[in-house]
């Protein structure tokens, strides 16, 4: 791909730290190419971008995501790896939250994300630990495209343990960044990155967020940008739900209690999925019946069914493999809700 001088100027502009500084310079001239005379730096950067398979969308491009363009401070450059057209998807939903996700938050994700995916929503998140990673992973495992917005150059992976996940997303989705290659994940990049997550999306969904969670910045951005904000309430004693509960208390967010709440609010049909038909034998059916009222501990199942441990653990594994139930932490079991 060839870059003209305007785009080369934007590339060089992107090396300046701080959005306001970049913007000021950008606004000071008619065309960005008036800013620079010498483009050797840009040529060098383009060469390494092409070597690493990194593409660029600039604010001058036709296919710059329209929703993102509408926000107060749209990024001038979007470096990307993966499927470019995905950014113009109409049905983007940001899913962000705490990095220290609890069993509750995980549970929420397991119940909500599959429904979102089935309804045709595409998940946008930040590849951080916790909620972000789980959301991305669920998409990858489901073979669904997803968008990751990172706060560093695309040649770096932060946090490091997500290298494999990042590659999976590149292969089936897109990873984007406002920053040129080689940029480190500096602290102040993250709030800047968060505005892109909410800016791209139709709405922001927060399953779990602590008091000082970065996702609350995304939530504030979402409100500033006029996006819907959906939060899941949590226990008032859980430090990882303080953020969500605060948003509810401040009447800034829509409370969601089930995935349909989000989907209906966004005007989608709750697609009725064809029910999976699984053949259960007598014992398995009994176990499933006992789980009808919610999660249940292994011992209670043993007690009620009268099965011994060998029989019951074998039956439970089979049910798990069939995708009927799942094991929670602490030897609890529950039925996987089918929508």
């Amino acid at each position, binding site marked *: 791909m060839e870059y003209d001088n305007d785009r080369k100027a934007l590339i060089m502009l992107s090396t300046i730290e701080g959005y306001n500084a970049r913007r000021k310079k950008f606004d000071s001239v008619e065309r960005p190419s008036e800013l620079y005379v010498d483009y050797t730096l840009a040529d060098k950067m383009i060469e390494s971008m092409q070597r690493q398979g990194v593409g660029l969308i600039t604010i001058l491009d036709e296919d710059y995501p329209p929703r993102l363009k509408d926000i107060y401070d749209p990024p001038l450059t979007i470096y990307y790896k993966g499927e470019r057209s995905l950014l113009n998807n109409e049905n983007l939903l940001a899913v962000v939250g705490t*990095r*220290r996700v*609890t*069993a509750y938050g995980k549970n929420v994700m397991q119940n909500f994300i599959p429904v979102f995916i089935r309804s045709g929503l595409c998940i946008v998140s930040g590849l951080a*630990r*916790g909620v972000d990673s*789980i959301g991305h*992973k669920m998409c990858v495992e489901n073979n669904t495209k997803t968008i990751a917005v990172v706060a560093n150059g695309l040649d770096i992976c932060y*946090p490091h*343990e997500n290298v494999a996940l990042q590659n999976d997303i590149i292969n089936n989705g897109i990873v984007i960044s406002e920053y040129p290659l080689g940029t480190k994940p500096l602290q102040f990049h993250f709030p800047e990155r968060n505005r892109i997550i909410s800016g791209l999306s139709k709405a922001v969904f927060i399953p779990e967020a602590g008091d000082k969670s970065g996702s609350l910045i995304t939530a504030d951005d979402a409100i500033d940008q006029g996006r819907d904000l959906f939060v899941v309430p949590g226990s008032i004693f*859980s*430090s*990882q739900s303080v953020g969500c509960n605060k948003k509810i208390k401040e009447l800034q967010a829509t409370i969601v209690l089930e995935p349909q709440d989000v989907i209906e609010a966004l005007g989608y049909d709750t697609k009725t999925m064809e029910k999976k038909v699984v053949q259960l034998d007598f014992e398995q059916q009994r176990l499933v019946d006992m789980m009808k009222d919610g999660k249940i*501990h*292994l*011992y*209670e199942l*043993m*007690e009620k069914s009268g099965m011994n*441990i*060998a*029989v019951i*653990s*074998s*039956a*439970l*594994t*089979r049910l*798990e*493999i069939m*995708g009927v139930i799942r*094991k929670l*932490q*602490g*030897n609890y079991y529950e039925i996987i809700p089918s929508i």
Partner: protein
Amino acid sequence: MLAKTKSYALNGVDGYEVSIEVDLNAGLPAYDTVGLADTAIKESKERVRSAIKNSLFTYPIRKITINLAPADTKKEGSHFDLAIALGIMIANEEIESNIYKDYIILGELSLDGSINHVKGVMPLVISAVQNGYRKFILPSKNAKEASYISGIEVYAFDKLVEVVDFLTGKSQVEPLKTSEFVSMQSANRYNVDFSEVKGQFMAKRALEIAVAGGHNVLMIGPPGAGKTMMAKCVPTIMPDMTFEEAIEVTKIHSVAGILDSSVGIVVSRPFRTPHHTATIPALMGGGASAKPGEISLAHNGVLFLDEMPEYQRRTLETLRQPLEDGVAVVSRAKHTLEYPARFMLVASMNPCPCGNLGSKTQECKCTPSEIHRYVSKLSGPLLDRIDLQIEVDSISYEDFRSTIPNESSKSIKERVERARKLQRERYAGTSTKTNDEMTNAQVKAYCKLEADSEAMLKNAFTRLNLTARASSRVLKVARTIADLEGSENIFANHIAEAIQYRSLDRKYWD
């Protein structure tokens, strides 16, 4: 005159003959020991002189030269005292009979002439028997240990005088009676029992399977869930030690000097719990004299590593080779020793550094990177050798006022022994003893799956995110579950249960 008495020295858990040559020469009174003796042997000079004098014999005022042959191996310990003292007295013509030449002599002397307890008698005697010796002079305090070996004459003494009287024919001493090896079948020597563990059915079942197939276990659960208690119960359901196993264990414990001399043999399976600050030599064996480490002391028993991720990573990694080969190789500048170390590894860990991850009542305060660091202390290759990983939860059993009976160790043990018998028959003639030790070829031969089980296993891998290395582990555990049931074939339900015990593979922490 020159005298030659015979004794034995330790090399690992084996002994070799040392002949003690004593020569009295003209010259200024002196006492020289040659033959790479350590300080304890050199110091024998003082003990020997006082013991001879205080037993009212004459100590020769001559130049005494003592040679420990073979002269090129390093010898240590105080058990040559008695042989040296007798050698001096023979050279001094205090003892004129020749019968001493038939005896292997072991014992440490006290200044008053009494004979003290020494270390390593069992392995020394066994090695001597293998080399054709039949008669032994030992301290009475070690007599019990030697009495379990049949076909030998053991004469036990308390005082130097008694030995001299015996060798000169002044008194008649009867050889010791052979003790009968009584396995601990009759009595529970462990003070704990599985019936005392309330609830925890899944963990108990997993431990039963582990013992039945010789598998290693990792228990993951919050503090106070009863992990340590259950680990302590593991030896109670292990099959009784055979005499051969007991001898193997006794040899090691004797070398380490931790054998109870009043019993003389180890009858119950060892249960070793090294602290997590243990160093590599403490665990593997070593030190200047290459002593057996904790893993060898746990031979034929249980090695319990509580809070496994708290151990130094390097320390844990050294376990890999013994877990594979069943021996601990200790290499030192002077010698390389092999100690047997075929133990069952029972490990426990918290789900995260604070222990509350996944708890219903407590909140986990750990950061994701802390948890990541904590878990990554256990390397893949090490986890590879742990077949069963189970989740132990801290649920209060009383919550359910359960009517499910808590089985006693005795009835679990009966099942274990039946399963072990099947395995012995299956692997007769090979070096494999339990399902855990199966070679790849044996897994192929003995873990054949029906088409539906095969399909289920495949399904489980994709559905439950099992990692690839879990496959052969699941098969081995399924083999044991089938053995416990007395079933020749592995059926789908056996596979299904085996998968249940792969908590870590199921990406527990994600």
